[in-house]
């Protein structure tokens, strides 16, 4: 009987959860700023944020690998001053995933903020509430579907990433060997049986996650149009 090693899946979900959490904290103020600003720098920031969507993962992986390696000032600083080796480590994978999945968190949040009724936010300011209070008490509760979309898509996208992960993390069992890399290795060594099982698990989980998201969004739309 073939025993299945679930470690790559656990690692994938740990990576995706941590990435989604960190990106949420980074992307929330960024998306709020982009939705509110009329600055000329807005298109530049938007273009930089969206780059990971169009760049080949190998290009993004290469730059991140270089930036995190000891050859760059960033990698050298982390290794010399903090004793943290970023390449081929879980920490490096988290940083790489944050870059790779950034647009998937920023864009739904920005769309959510931009689709809010502007006068609703103004009504909150006139009521004497600060921008921070308005953000948490008025803006975020009125864009639940955008919030959930941003978190779920970022999570799912990180679980599914392959190119960047392979370049930055390699395939160290228990450290950087996530599910997508494990499937690639199984195919490489022609263990199709395990590859089938791993792929079917990934397919099932991805489908269930997306289905839950669409069901929630449909319910939200129905509630708002009632």
């Amino acid at each position, binding site marked *: 009987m073939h025993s299945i090693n679930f470690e790559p899946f656990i690692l994938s979900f740990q990576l995706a959860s941590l990435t989604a959490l960190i990106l949420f904290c980074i992307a929330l103020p960024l998306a709020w700023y982009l939705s509110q600003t009329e600055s000329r720098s807005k298109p530049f920031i938007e273009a930089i944020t969206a780059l990971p969507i169009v760049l080949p993962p190998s290009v993004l992986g290469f730059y991140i690998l270089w930036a995190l390696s000891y050859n760059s000032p960033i990698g050298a600083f982390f290794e010399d001053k903090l004793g943290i080796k970023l390449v081929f480590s879980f920490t490096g994978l988290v940083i790489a995933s944050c870059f790779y999945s950034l647009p998937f968190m920023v864009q739904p949040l920005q769309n959510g903020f931009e689709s809010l009724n502007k006068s*609703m936010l103004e009504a909150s300011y*006139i009521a004497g509430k600060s921008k921070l209070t308005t953000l948490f008490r008025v803006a975020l509760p009125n864009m639940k579907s955008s919030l959930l979309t941003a978190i779920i898509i970022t999570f799912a996208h990180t679980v599914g990433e392959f190119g960047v992960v392979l370049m930055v993390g390699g395939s160290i069992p228990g450290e950087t060997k996530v599910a997508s890399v494990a499937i690639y290795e199984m195919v490489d060594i022609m263990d199709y049986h395990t590859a089938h099982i791993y792929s079917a698990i990934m397919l099932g989980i991805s489908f269930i996650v997306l289905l839950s998201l669409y069901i929630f969004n449909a319910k939200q739309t129905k509630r708002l149009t009632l």
Partner: protein
Amino acid sequence: MIDLNITKELHGAQGTMQLNCKTTIQEGEFVALSGKSGSGKTTLLRILAGLENAKGTITVHQQKWLDTSFALVPQKRKIGFVFQDYALFENMTVEQNLLYVAKDPQLAEKLLALTELTQLKKRYPNSLSGGQKQRVSICRALMKKPKILLLDEPLSALDLTMRNKLQEELLLLHKEFHTTTIMVTHNPAEIYRLASRVIILENGTIIQDTKTEDILYDLAPTEGSITLRGEVLHTTKNTALVAVGKKRIEITLTTQQAQQLSLGEKIKFRATHFQLC
């Protein structure tokens, strides 16, 4: 007292235009702000609320709200603003919408009772009608006990019955709180019923600033209304019998209006209410 002297360059459908307004509004006044679309009415209201920048000065009760080097943020201007699209917080119930502005449950109860919304206080905005939403919006604006209440065409999206009802409620609230009120409206009947003074803007400039009764017949008539001219035949405390051509028409007046009329006087009047029969 509000002292206003502001300028702002506006970019509208008809090109660039200079908003240039200088006026003084007394405490407790109910002012109607009228004029064609794109004349700068809403912008003026938004500048007063601090939602848009402008050059010039705004002083409210000796406090500087706008100066050459300073603009008080909207949060610190004691203003109530009623938006044309209600702008209610969809995630909060009617009661929560009011309490978000000020944690004063007694005032919230009082306002909800005045506007007959007490039964709906646990409902969410998406389950309310347009008229109910606008009443909540007016109540919410008054929760802060504002120095100035700004209303941006608050009744324009409502049907005639609801508009009349809300006009009555606005009058009631104005009588109760004596808040200085500035309301953008195109509707002459609404202006006549609610406001004591009318400011008319055209291309960003005040072209008329006068008492309501002085201007009533110069205003564009409400859709479907007609102005009649006739001779006063008889008056009572609240009515006048007027000869219009070969017909005689009885009109309802306030006591003060009735006292000002004398027999044989030529008047012009307009129907503001009707009932289907």
